[in-house]
Structures are given as structure tokens and as C-alpha cells.
């Protein structure tokens, strides 16, 4: 320990060689730049209200300055500054500052806090006759500031200790300075209250001065000042810029003291001084170098090891413990976990965090202590609480003898629980935990009986089977027997899927399926087992052939409906079925094939042609073509898409005729309508257009709607016949989504050509059919009027008549 010293005052002779304020003496080797730097720090300005020419008694009442400031590079300066009044020439305004500079703060202030040097007898206030000062190895303490003295001081003013502690932490984190307005000794004690509670490195980072006339010109973290200082204390400064504790005028910044650190330190000061003072040692051991922002967590850890749980434990707390688990000793860890676990029911996320802690502690000296606390708790929770804990238990040191030993007293409780399990998931969870804790094999017959009771439930099968395989032959036998006893038809595909996740269970299932004579069950299982539906279909058909000797079209139809349940078969599958079983291709497959066929007509024309050829053969063979006309529709569309220049209207006529067929499938009709509508819209000759449109509408009235939709999409509504109110309204309704352009163009241009009487007639006609439709029509017409009236129209339009617009 070694401090360099320097005295500064107004004196006759000093290091500068002339009279006045200067360094009177200093330890040899002081860097002149360092002297320049610290000169300003120790400047003393007396309070405004202080006596100009004070008596000795008044001088003693001038605030005493003890300042501490880290200087960077491990250096720091401590100084006491005292107003001494007269200088050598008899002028007032003199002060004396005794500086102590250490090159290694951590080393030289390892055993004492800077604030403890308050009024140390080592501080000088008289100039030296020698220019050279010795190094000082130690500053004796005055005893004014120690933990007990601070405790009794703080307990007399309990209201602000948490605030000052929190404000100091905040200052270290954000730089927001703490300004304390009070008597100098009280300020020193407040500083001590805050710095005692900080980890050592943070306490040494907390610069302070017990008095500054102008806090604005001080850079210290904690600045003490008097009631008559230059500190204005505006509301903005109090609320936002500084953390103000003005005990003279009763002004205090709003400080959020809800942090565990602030609350904990305040409580600790009430309890015992040692409790506060020991925190620094704990932090040094467990969380050396902790930042001010994270000291909250460190305090919480300290409170846990102290056996004083403050507030609720969070997963973040446990994570903090986990990261530092090797820094605790076994006794501390026992106390920590006992505090956490003994706190009552824990949330699952907390249990997860504890589980992580357990894993982290495995290869550390505290592993046994951790396991002793966590394993019984987890076993108990798994048996009595929820299934989730069982999964964690399963991961806990698999089959660890230590775990089993710790959990052994819980065996009767486990058997009771598994016997009385109220649900399949609960049973499965208990089985898992019993497996880990060694209970499942303790009485395999009893376990197997319980397993057989719950085996039929879908959600537990895979896990139970898995466990059964691991656990005992009896359980496996019981499980498979239960599976075989189940009527396969009652098994939904979801349940089968849940089984088949396990490879070995899949083997068992295949055996069961092979023994089954139910082709439907077989098909269902294979659909899950095989990725390719056609393979499942083929295998099932072959099995059916073996079982029945032959296979009928109805059988194939049934198999198809199982394999492609609710799903349209891919066109390739349809082709493969039709090629493999051409004689047995069922009628329904034609319907399956139709939508992809028509879709493929535009996307994959070659495959579509191939499919169409197959279907055409089948139509001829089964005479189904007259019922559904898939190939005819396909061919009609193909003709409309590839018009023959010699007779361009023939495909249209054929398509219109086909559209008139009674049994035409609805989907096919829609495809055909689309093709016809598109073809109609491409006809440039209005006469021909009207002729074929009229014919198409006559054959299939709904065509108009499709046609109108196409027309709207292709922005040519002028081609839509709106000669009747019904047509007009239908078209208008279809065009609703495209109203904007519709109002500008298309229908509007047609309507403008109508006489007013006819427009009204549309409204009346609609009103007879549907009042709502009539209202909608009138609203639209009004909107139309607002958008497209001419200047004169607007000029003469009668408001609310709704007629000018349509004209």
C-alpha cells in the first residue's frame, strides 16, 4: 500500500517558487501533469452564506471536503479539502487540500472504502516546511464512518436509503449524478450507505465529493452540497437530470426503488451492518466484475445464500445461478436451492431452469448438493403434479443410483398414483417417471396390468409401447395383446399414425395387419406405411386378390376411396390405375380424372391428351361417356382453344350443344362455360356475337353470368347484353368488385344511352322482385351520376333526384 501525497494552499513558498496558491509540498516523483489534473479537483469555494471573515468556531463549521476520484490507469486520488481562512498575507479565502494519490487503487484500497477515510487523522491542514513529502502506507481510520455508525445513521432516516442506493447504482450505469444536500458529515454517511452496499470494484468506481459549491462543475458520481449552493434544483433537474436528495429543502427526485437491490439493501441496513458489508465479499467471490446494471441479480443471489428469499424467484435468477454454479460451495448451493424449492409450488419454466442448473452442476463439486435438492423435489412433483415434470425426470441422470436412492421413499406413492391414474396421458407420464426412478420394474405385474388398462387409448400407445419394450416382456405382451384385441375397423388413421412413429411398433403392427383379414384395415395401415398411395393401393389390391381369389370393380372402388380418402388422386396415379387395371377402372375414377384433365389441358397438354385417350377407351367400354361427357368436354375445349380458320364457329356450336346436355357434370360445365365465354368475347362481328350469345343463353341461362364475369375481367362490358333489367342487375352484381372502372367505362356507357323512363323501369322491375336489389341499383345509379355528369348536367341536376347521373 502506498499513497503519494501533495499539499495545496496559498503559501509563501511551494513547488512553483512564488507566493500564492500552489502545491506547498509533494511526494517526489509526482507527475506534473497529474498535479495539474488534481489541482482543480481539490479547489474549495466556501458556501455563499458563510461568514466572510469567520471566527475559529465558524471556520470549524465550514463544510469539509473529502473527495475521491478514479483517474484512469488504475490511479485514483483521495483528498481532503478544508477552508482555513487567512493566508500568509492576511487575506481571506485560503484553503488547504491534502491529496493522496494511489497508482493501484485495487491494491491500496482493498481493505477500506474511500469514504471511510472521512476525518482520518492522517489528513493534514497545515503547510509543510519541507518541499518533499513521504509516501504514506496507510490512512488510519477516524471511526466516524464504519458500518455500524452508518447503520444507526440510516435507521434514523429510513425513508431515503433505498433511493440513494438505487440512485448510486443508476449513476454508475447511466452517469446520472446524485446530488445530496445536507450537512457534510451526513453526506459522508449517505455516501457510505451507498458504497458499503456495492461490490468492491463498483464502490471504487463511485467518485464522490462531500461538498462542492457548484455541483454543476463537479464530475463526481455523488456530489454533496449545502443548501445555499449554486445548485438551482429546477424541477427538470430534479426529475430528469440529477438524482436529488435535498434534505435541507425537502426536494427529492422520484427514484424507482422497486429493484431487489435497493429494497434488499435498505432491509439489510435495518437488519445488521454485517449483512450489508458481507455483500461485497460475496460479489467478489461469485460475481467479480459485475456491472452496475446486473448487481440486482447478484444481490438476489446473495439473499438466497443468506437464506432470505426476497420476492419471487424467476427463471432468470436460476439462469444466473446456473452460470456461476461452480463459484458456490456446497453449503451455499444447498441453502440457495432450499430457498428456491422450499418457496412452494414452482412454475414449469422455473423447473426448467432448475433442470438446466442440475445439468450444469453435474461435473462440479456441488453436483451432489444440487442432486440432493433437485432429485427428490422433481420426483415428488412428477408423481403428484403434471406430466411435463415426468419428461424432465426422464432426462435426469438416467437410472442414476443416487437419484433412485433419493427417490426410493416415494415408491408406494408412485404405485398408488399409477393404479389410480385418471387418464391415459397421466398414466404414460407416471410410467416414464417410474421407469427413471426404478419403480416400474419393481413390480412388473402390477405395472403391466395398469399398462393393459390404458393401452387402447390413442395418445399413449407409442410411448407405452416404447416403454413396454424397455421395461419388461410382460408389459410388451400385454400391450400387443391389447392391440390385437382391438377391432381394426375402429382404429382411426390418426391412431395408426401415432403407432407407426416407432420402428419396432411398426413391426408389431405389420404382424397384426398381416394376420388381419380386413382389407379396409389393411388399406388404412398401408396408406400410412407407404409414402406412395399407388403402392398402398396396389399392395392392397394384391392382398385382396389373395384373400378373395379375384378382385371386383367394387372392391377396387372401395380400396381407392380408402387410399385417396378426401383427396383427388394425382393424374399420374389415375393413369397408372387405368393402365394397370384397365378392365376394372371404376366409373368414379372418371370423375376423379376430369378436373385434372381439364386443368392439364392448359398446363400439361401432352399428359392431358394421354389421359383423354385412356378415358376415351374406358368410356367406350363402360358407356359412361354418355353420362358424364368428360372426354367430350375435353375435346370441345380443345377445339375452342385451337380454332380452325375455315370454320371458326363450329367448335362454338358444338360446345354450346354439349353445354345443353342434361347430365353434364357441374364442374365440367363450368370449364366449358369459361371456354365459350372467352370464345364469344373474341368475336369481333356484333351480329355473329349476338347470335351465338343468344343461343348459348337460351341453352344454358347461367352462361350469361360467366360471360359477364369474363367481360368485366377483360374490360369490355359494352359487349354484355343488358337489355333486360334481370340481366343488367346480374351483370352489375358480378361487376361489383370492379366497380371503379365499371363506373367510368363499360356498363355506364351503355346506360347513358338509355332513356330516363327505361332506367326508372329497371328500378321498378327490380323492386317487384327484390327490394334490396332495387335499393342497391338506385344507390349505384346515384354514384354513377356523381362521377360522370357533365358541367351542364351538374348545373341543372336536382339534388336527390338521382336521374341526372344515369343520363
Amino acid at each position, binding site marked *: 500500500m502506498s499513497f503519494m501525497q501533495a499539499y495545496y494552499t*496559498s503559501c*509563501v513558498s511551494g513547488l*512553483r517558487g*512564488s*507566493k*500564492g*496558491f*500552489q502545491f506547498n509540498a509533494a511526494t517526489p516523483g509526482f507527475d506534473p501533469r497529474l498535479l*495539474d*489534473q*488534481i*489541482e*482543480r*479537483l481539490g*479547489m*474549495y*469555494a466556501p458556501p*455563499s452564506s458563510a461568514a*466572510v*471573515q469567520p471566527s475559529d468556531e465558524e471556520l470549524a463549521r465550514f463544510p469539509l471536503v473529502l473527495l475521491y*476520484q478514479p*483517474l*484512469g490507469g488504475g490511479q485514483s486520488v483521495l483528498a481532503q479539502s478544508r477552508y482555513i481562512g487567512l*493566508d*500568509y*498575507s*492576511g*487575506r*481571506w*479565502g*485560503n484553503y488547504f487540500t491534502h491529496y493522496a494519490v494511489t497508482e493501484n487503487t485495487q491494491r491500496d484500497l482493498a481493505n477500506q472504502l474511500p469514504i471511510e477515510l472521512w476525518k482520518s487523522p492522517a489528513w493534514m491542514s497545515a503547510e509543510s516546511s519541507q518541499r518533499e513529502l513521504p509516501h504514506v502506507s496507510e490512512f488510519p481510520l477516524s471511526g466516524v464512518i464504519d458500518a455500524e455508525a452508518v447503520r444507526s445513521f440510516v435507521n434514523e432516516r429510513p425513508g431515503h436509503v433505498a433511493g440513494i442506493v438505487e440512485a448510486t447504482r443508476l449513476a454508475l450505469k*447511466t*452517469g*446520472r*449524478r446524485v446530488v445530496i444536500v445536507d450537512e457534510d458529515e451526513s453526506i459522508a454517511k449517505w455516501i457510505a450507505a451507498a458504497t458499503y452496499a456495492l461490490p468492491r470494484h463498483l464502490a471504487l468506481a463511485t*467518485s464522490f465529493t462531500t461538498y462542492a459549491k457548484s455541483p454543476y*462543475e*463537479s*464530475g*463526481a458520481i455523488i456530489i454533496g452540497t449545502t443548501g445555499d449552493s*449554486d445548485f*438551482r434544483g429546477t*424541477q*427538470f433537474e430534479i*426529475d*430528469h*437530470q440529477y438524482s436529488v436528495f435535498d434534505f435541507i429543502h425537502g426536494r427529492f427526485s422520484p427514484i424507482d426503488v422497486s429493484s431487489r437491490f435497493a429494497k434488499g439493501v435498505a432491509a439489510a441496513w435495518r437488519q445488521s451492518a454485517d449483512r450489508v458489508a458481507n455483500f461485497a465479499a460475496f460479489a467478489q467471490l461469485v460475481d467479480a466484475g459485475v456491472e452496475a446494471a446486473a448487481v440486482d441479480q447478484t444481490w438476489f443471489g446473495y439473499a438466497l445464500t443468506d437464506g432470505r428469499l426476497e420476492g419471487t424467484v424467476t427463471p432468470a435468477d436460476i439462469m444466473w445461478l446456473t452460470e456461476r454454479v461452480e463459484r458456490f460451495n456446497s453449503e451455499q448451493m444447498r441453502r440457495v436451492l432450499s430457498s428456491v424449492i422450499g418457496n412452494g409450488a414452482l412454475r414449469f419454466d422455473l423447473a426448467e431452469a432448475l433442470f438446466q442448473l442440475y445439468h450444469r452442476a453435474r461435473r462440479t463439486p456441488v453436483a451432489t448438493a444440487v442432486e440432493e435438492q433437485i432429485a427428490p423435489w422433481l420426483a415428488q412433483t412428477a408423481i403428484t403434479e403434471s406430466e411435463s415434470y415426468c419428461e424432465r425426470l426422464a432426462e435426469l441422470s438416467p437410472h442414476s443410483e443416487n437419484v433412485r436412492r433419493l427417490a426410493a421413499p416415494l415408491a408406494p406413492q408412485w404405485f398408488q398414483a399409477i393404479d389410480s391414474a385418471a387418464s391415459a396421458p397421466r398414466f404414460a407420464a407416471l410410467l416414464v417417471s417410474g421407469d427413471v426412478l426404478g419403480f416400474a420394474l419393481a413390480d412388473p405385474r402390477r405395472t403391466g396390468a395398469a399398462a393393459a388398462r390404458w393401452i387402447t387409448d390413442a395418445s399413449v400407445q407409442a410411448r407405452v409401447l416404447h416403454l413396454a419394450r424397455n421395461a419388461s416382456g410382460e408389459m410388451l405382451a400385454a400391450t400387443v395383446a391389447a392391440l390385437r384385441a382391438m377391432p381394426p375397423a375402429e382404429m382411426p388413421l390418426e391412431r395408426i399414425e401415432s403407432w407407426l412413429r416407432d420402428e419396432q411398433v411398426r413391426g408389431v403392427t405389420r404382424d397384426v395387419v398381416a394376420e388381419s383379414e380386413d382389407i379396409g384395415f389393411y388399406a388404412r395401415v398401408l396408406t400410412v406405411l407407404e409414402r406412395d398411395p399407388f403402392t398402398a393401393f396396389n399392395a392392397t389390391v394384391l392382398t385382396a386378390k389373395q384373400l378373395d381369389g379375384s378382385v371386383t370393380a367394387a372392391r377396387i372402388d372401395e380400396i381407392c376411396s380408402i387410399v385417396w380418402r378426401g383427396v383427388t388422386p394425382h393424374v399420374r396415379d389415375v393413369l397408372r390405375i387405368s393402365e394397370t387395371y384397365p378392365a376394372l377402372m371404376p366409373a368414379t375414377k372418371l370423375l376423379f380424372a376430369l378436373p385434372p384433365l381439364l386443368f392439364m389441358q392448359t398446363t400439361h397438354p401432352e399428359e392431358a391428351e394421354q389421359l383423354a385417350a385412356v378415358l376415351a377407351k374406358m368410356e367406350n367400354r363402360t358407356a359412361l361417356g354418355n353420362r358424364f361427357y368428360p372426354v367430350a368436354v375435353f375435346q370441345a375445349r380443345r377445339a375452342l382453344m385451337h380454332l380452325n380458320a375455315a370454320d371458326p364457329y363450329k367448335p362454338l356450336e358444338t360446345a354450346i350443344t354439349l353445354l345443353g346436355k342434361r347430365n353434364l357434370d357441374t364442374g365440367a360445365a363450368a370449364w366449358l362455360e369459361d371456354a365459350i365465354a372467352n370464345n364469344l368475347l373474341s368475336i369481333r362481328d356484333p351480329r355473329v356475337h349476338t347470335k351465338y350469345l343468344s343461343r348459348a343463353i337460351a341453352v344454358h341461362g347461367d352462361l350469361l353470368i360467366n360471360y359477364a364475369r369474363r367481360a368485366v375481367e377483360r374490360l369490355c362490358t359494352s359487349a354484355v347484353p343488358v337489355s333486360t333489367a334481370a340481366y343488367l342487375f346480374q351483370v352489375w352484381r358480378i361487376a361489383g368488385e370492379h366497380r371503379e372502372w365499371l363506373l367510368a367505362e363499360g356498363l355506364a356507357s351503355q346506360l347513358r344511352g338509355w332513356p330516363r323512363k327505361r332506367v326508372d323501369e329497371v328500378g321498378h322491375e327490380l323492386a317487384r322482385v327484390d327490394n334490396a336489389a332495387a335499393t342497391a341499383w338506385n344507390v349505384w345509379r346515384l354514384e354513377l351520376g356523381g362521377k360522370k355528369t357533365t358541367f351542364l348536367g351538374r348545373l341543372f341536376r336536382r339534388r336527390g333526384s338521382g336521374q341526372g347521373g344515369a343520363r
Partner: protein
Amino acid sequence: MAKLLCPYCFSRFTSEQMQFRCVNPTGDCPMVLDVELSRFVSDGSPPVPKPRTFTPPRPFWPGVPRSAMCSCRYETRLKLCPHCHNEWPTGLESTENLIIAVIGAKDVGKSHYIAVLINTLTNDFGVRFRASLNAVDDRTRTRYAAEFRKHVYEEKTAIPTTRAARTYPLIYRLVFEEGTIYKSLRVVTLVFFDTAGENFTTTNTLNAHNRYMASASGILFLLDPLQIPAVQSRLAGKRVFPEERTNPIDVVSRTDEVIRNVLGLDIHKRIRIPVALTFSKLDAIRELLPRGSVAHRDCIHQGVLNLTDQEQMNETMRTHVAQWVGTGLEQLVSQRFAEYAYFGVSALGCAPDEHGRIAGGVAPFRIEDPFLWLLYRMRVIDGQRRKTA
């Protein structure tokens, strides 16, 4: 474009570079660590969080905008120097700024001179020159009240010794009323620096603390005749002499050195800053001056500087200074400075007693003379030759 001069760090910058500090009272604007201000204070402490600063977008019209809009949508008027982040005194950018450097060794009476001069300018001067003087900022107001007026006028005691460190300047606004029919106002900002005498004892400290001298519009050298050995021998036994014995030539030559260093001025050229070589404590050496000398009578300048009186005083003091310290000072000053004049003043009118009390109260004598001469050389006031009484 004319550059603005910061009265704190003496950096020059354009009006567009002026920064603003958001002082949103709701606290919505985040605090940021003010590195620039911390560097200015330079006591080694980490930066202090202050409301954020920003440079507003370039205004359409040249000049410093009155206010600026922060990103938090608060309109602030608090301007800052972009280099040191000290608060920019209100209106400083739109007035003539005259920095008056009061320079002198320890115990020559710089603080007393400033204390009494400001009081005189505030009260008596206004009537005669149709002018008014008022502090620009709270810091000046508070500091003058606590460190000057309190001692000299309220407690009637000598001002305590000034602390040797960088201090903030005293900034005043001097407003003259001009014209008779069409009246207008002429505003001049005066920046007074009062620093400890210790700062003038070595060139190093002078460099560190008194760089403002190079930016000064006028320099007022205060010299204490009682520190001159020749004066002391003549008044031996009649006066109490200060323990200081600073040679005036040393102070002047150090000042010259600093100004030339800062401005990079050639040694062959003379410094064009007007210099008022002012001997303080004139009351104490009055008996050394011949009866009938202009130094025995006060001069009241009525609206203009009485040039006749000023020239007589200059000649009188020059003659006596040559007798007391030899011609070295005159030679030095005339070679180094282009414009200079000698003055004799007494701030208190009498020396404080052994307890530091000003028993008879403050009775200033010719306190305005050097200041008015500097204003005259800076073309702020006019001068006129008049018959002396």
C-alpha cells in the same frame, strides 16, 4: 461569413454550426453523456449525462436561428457552443463582443477593480453615457453577487484571494442609446476575465488558464506600484507593503509571449490589441506625485472620453513609471504593442485595515479611465478634447 467566438473555450465557429440543447420538460428526450462539456471541465471525471444536443438544419436565412426543433418535437431556444457545449449567452451572436482581459500579478487588486468597475458601470456610468449594463446570464449575476458585491459593498471587506483555476467569465451587456431624434440602441457584450494572480507567474500557467488574452479586444494590465522596490523605499514606514514583488515587466512579457504563441504572430510585428497599463492603489502613492498633478483630481467623463485629461494622465504616469521601474517597461510595451496608454486608478479609495475591512466604504478614483479608453480605442464611445479644470 463572420465567425462567432465562444467566450468560454474561445473557439470560432460559424452561425450554422451553433448547436441547441433540448430541454424538453417532460423528459421524453433521452439524456446523453456530454463528452464535450466534460472535456472542457477536464478534471478527469467521466462525462455527465445532459439533455441531448443537436445542430439544426441549415436555416434559409443566414444567421443563428432563434429556436430549433428537436427530434422529440420540442422547440428549444437553448444555444450551445458546438465545441465546449457551454450555454451560449443570450444574444451574444448578434452583438459586438468585446473581451476585456484584466491581467495582473497576485495582489494587484484585479478582483477589486472589476468589482468596483462593474458597480460603477451599472449605476453612475449610465446617466452620463446614456447606457445601461446588465448581466447576461445567471452565472455572472450569481458570481458577481457572491464573490464581489457581497464583500466590497455589503460586508465592506477585502475580497478573498481568488482561487487559481480556470473560472467562468463575467459576461455583461452594455446598451448605449444613440441619436437624438431617431433613437436607436447599440449593444455591446463585455466579457471580463478575472483570474488569480498565480496564473500569471509562469508562462505555463498563463498558457493553460489565460488563452482568452489572445482573443481579447482590449487588455487592461493592472500593476501594483506598492510592489515596486523604488516606491517601497520612498514610502518606507508609511505604508504596509504586500509580500508580493512581481516585476511588471515579467507580467507584460509573459502576456506578450502567450498572445504571440496563440495567434502565431511574428516577433517583428506589434500586437494590435489596445493595452491599458493601469497602476492600481493610486491613493497609496498619491504623496509621491507632485501637487497639481492630474493624478490628484478625479475626472468625470460626460458622454465622451475626455482625451485631454487622458493624455495628461498618460504623460504623468509614464514619467513616474520611468522613475520607478526605469525605461524598460516603456521600451517593452512600445515595441510589443501598437496601442497603449498609462493610467492610475484606485478601486477602493483607501487600503483595507489590518483586518481586511474597508472602514470608510468604497470611494473609487478614476476607475473608469482605462476602461473608457479601451472602449474609445474599440470605437464604442467617442473621445473629445476638453479644457481641464
